[in-house]
């Protein structure tokens, strides 16, 4: 089947029900998108499909044919994504870093849809798990990106 990923076209030979995650990682060799749970619980596998964040570990690859997939590998070719990455670095968000691809994708999707999200919108969008507990740094980074002057409420 033919996939559009990061504005390139790929021909892949995969079963229709293979999760997008494993096509990206194993067939296409892009390992920035992470496997954490395989059950849409943690969000480490978050990618954008037509600009919406989806959990690729439970998204059948056939479902994204004809759509535009964006992974963390292309995050800096997007203006919003580039700002998110820069802010992530500025706030020194990452610890082990394993969940951060998904966190950056979730923040990018939020800000592309809603450039100035409210605190409630941020809380509703930033729900990926982080075992290192970088939640407050993520929170501060997204509020910074949203143009909130002070640190938001926890």
């Amino acid at each position, binding site marked *: 089947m033919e996939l559009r990923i990061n504005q390139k076209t790929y021909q892949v030979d995969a079963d229709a029900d293979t999760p997008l995650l494993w096509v990206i990682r194993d067939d296409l060799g892009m390992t920035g998108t992470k496997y954490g749970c395989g059950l849409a619980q*943690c969000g480490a596998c978050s990618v954008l499909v037509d600009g919406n964040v989806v959990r690729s570990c439970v998204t059948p690859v056939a479902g994204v044919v004809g759509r535009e997939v964006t992974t963390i590998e292309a995050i800096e070719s997007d203006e919003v994504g580039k700002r998110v990455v820069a802010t992530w*670095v500025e706030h*020194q968000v990452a610890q082990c870093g394993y969940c951060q691809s998904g966190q950056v994708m979730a923040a990018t999707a939020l800000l592309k849809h809603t450039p100035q999200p409210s605190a409630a919108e941020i809380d509703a969008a930033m729900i990926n798990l982080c*075992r290192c507990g970088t939640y407050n740094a993520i929170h501060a980074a997204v509020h910074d990106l949203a143009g909130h002057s002070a640190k938001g409420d*926890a």
Partner: protein
Amino acid sequence: MNAPLDAIEQLIGQNLNDPVNLSRRRFLKGSAVGALVLGFGLPLGATRVQAAAAAPAERGTQVPAFLEIRPDNTVRLLSPFIEGGQGTFTAMAQIVGEELDADPATFLVECAPPGDAYYVMENGMRITGGSMSVRMSYPTMRRLGALARAMLLQAGAQALNVPVSELTTEPGKVVHAASGRSIAYGELSERAMDLPVPDPASVQLRDPSRFRWIGKPVKRLDAYDKSTGKALYSIDLKVDGMLHAAVQHAPRLGMTVGSLRNEEQVKAMKGVHSVHRLPGAVAVVAERWWHAKRAVEAVQVDWLEAAADSTVRAMPADFSTEEYFKRLAAEKGPARDDENEGDVAAALANAKTRIEATYHNQYLHHAQLEPPSALARFDANGSLEIWLPNQAPEMYRADIAKRTGLDPSQITLHSPLLGGFFGRHFLYDSANPYPQAIALAKAVGRPVKLIWSREEEFLRDVLRPVAAVNFRGALDNDGWPVAIEAVSATEGPTESLAGKQGDKIDPTALEGLAGKSYAIANKRIAQIYVKGPMPLGYWRSVGNSLNDFFYEAFLDELADKGGKDPFELRLHLLRDNKRLTTLLNAVGDLSGGWKRGPFTAEDGSKRARGVAMASPFGTQTAVIAEVSIEQGQVKVHDIWQAIDPGSIVNPAIVEAQVAGAVSLGLSQVLVEEAVYIDGKPRARNYDLYPILPPSRMARVHVRIVESGEKMGGIGEPPLPAVAPAVANAVAALTGQRIRSMPLSRYTFT
């Protein structure tokens, strides 16, 4: 792990100081930095040397084994410690860079391969754990940087043909002020690294008042790569010709593979290369991991009960955590004393007021986000190359040598970044995929990467230990505590690894009950060793993670019984301890002044605060928590933490570690528990095993107190006081004293 390693060594009979001689050697020229080359694959010297590590004066002096300065002036440092989020790579660059006179931002840091050069800690060991890396290697790593600088100065003297005494350095270059000339380190490195390493005693370390990077909030070296998906973990690696593997483990540890009822059908499934029987598991090897996973889950296995001579800890079919907690609480002994001061029995007998209470805690998963994996490749002559998450390269290599019969010199071991640490990457016999990956690579004659699915990980993870502690306390006529007794029915993680009780008490079993600083004249801390069916492991802050919860909560019970405010009670019991008095006052001050409540917050909610302290890993901590009740559950609004690690290297990383440890501390006290029913885990993924979500995180306020005392740890110490501070706040707010975790088991009003 305050001091567990000696105990581990004693118990498991493996010499942890067992370096393999690595002849002094240089980095390979032009060694590739490609995605797959994480170490250097250097042929390591085969000669095993005596167990004793190099004498302290010799540690960390083999400069060329650690440092490569490239022509572009970037500094490549092979770290004795592995990065798992705690920031040790950045700290090492700060420490070495400070003395080398090179900006840490110019460093590329990777984990060093196995080798005796990397035994740099003052206890003579090499392991990343116990919050030991910085505090146990600080002077040695500084000296390493200074030795390298001396070699660069010497090389500069040769290159400029001037006496070395006329030279100095500026970041990244040797400077001859008299002539206005300078040479970049990158140009001198080749010549410098061929020079003999100077006498370690000959170099002078920088005066701390002139530090540029140590003690400063230097940016993490890995922040960008980890924000863009470029950081590579074991699970991401790939080599030519590699196959993928997945496993299905026995539902209970110890069971073995009987017949496979549908082996032929599985072999015929798409993408399947082969089906394998392994000890306690079935594996499928395939061209794609997804195919391997789907196929192995389809295998219908007749599992056989564990044989009587099973070498693993067989899980009984009737094991239930609820029943086990009851059994622990009812254990009568015999007990062994760890601390026994004064006359507890007499103090209890004579006291007018006595209190008794029983506490217990829950099993926990490590639940690091990166599922375990291992990539194994044999070459034509039978040597093995392996990539795997680990926190002790030499120990892993020794274990692999034992399992395979290979000489350690035939094993090249790579230590990629860890996708979460938390104690998961120690050498746990039944809980690591590398023995399976090695067996599969051998069987199929091709490289194999094995990934455990989340479900298989939760089935085989070793768990944080549990204990039931029976406390007794006595108050004097003024209501102050005069006696405390804690008898813990438990098995420590080190005892679990050993499968037996050692001659001495396992410090990882009782730390946090033992080692308290409160001036209570009569105290007894004892353990009833109970060997349980669950394989146990180290979990961030280890014994402190449960024991400080017990002790600090019971201390509040004593305060309440005696009519004392818990903050005032602690101040009273620490009145002769200047360091902890300062720390406790610091957290009170940070929180705007101690107030217990209940009080009404600005938003109208009724709230209260709790306080707790802990002394883990050479560091002192004090925590205040503010809570309310929302829809029957505990909402933690704020955590204030004062932490005194003596002195620090990076305040930004310290604050990040405090925030992270608070998160894990909240997770254990609020929501987490691994429940077993009929010998099987109730949860095998995050759906039924919740970990703290962002919505349950609290604001975290940190004050770092540098007392100047001996340097303590950072990664684990901020965790243990969190849970009891929350439980104490809940008691103040609701009047309910909860003596177990997690609090999600209760509904509050």
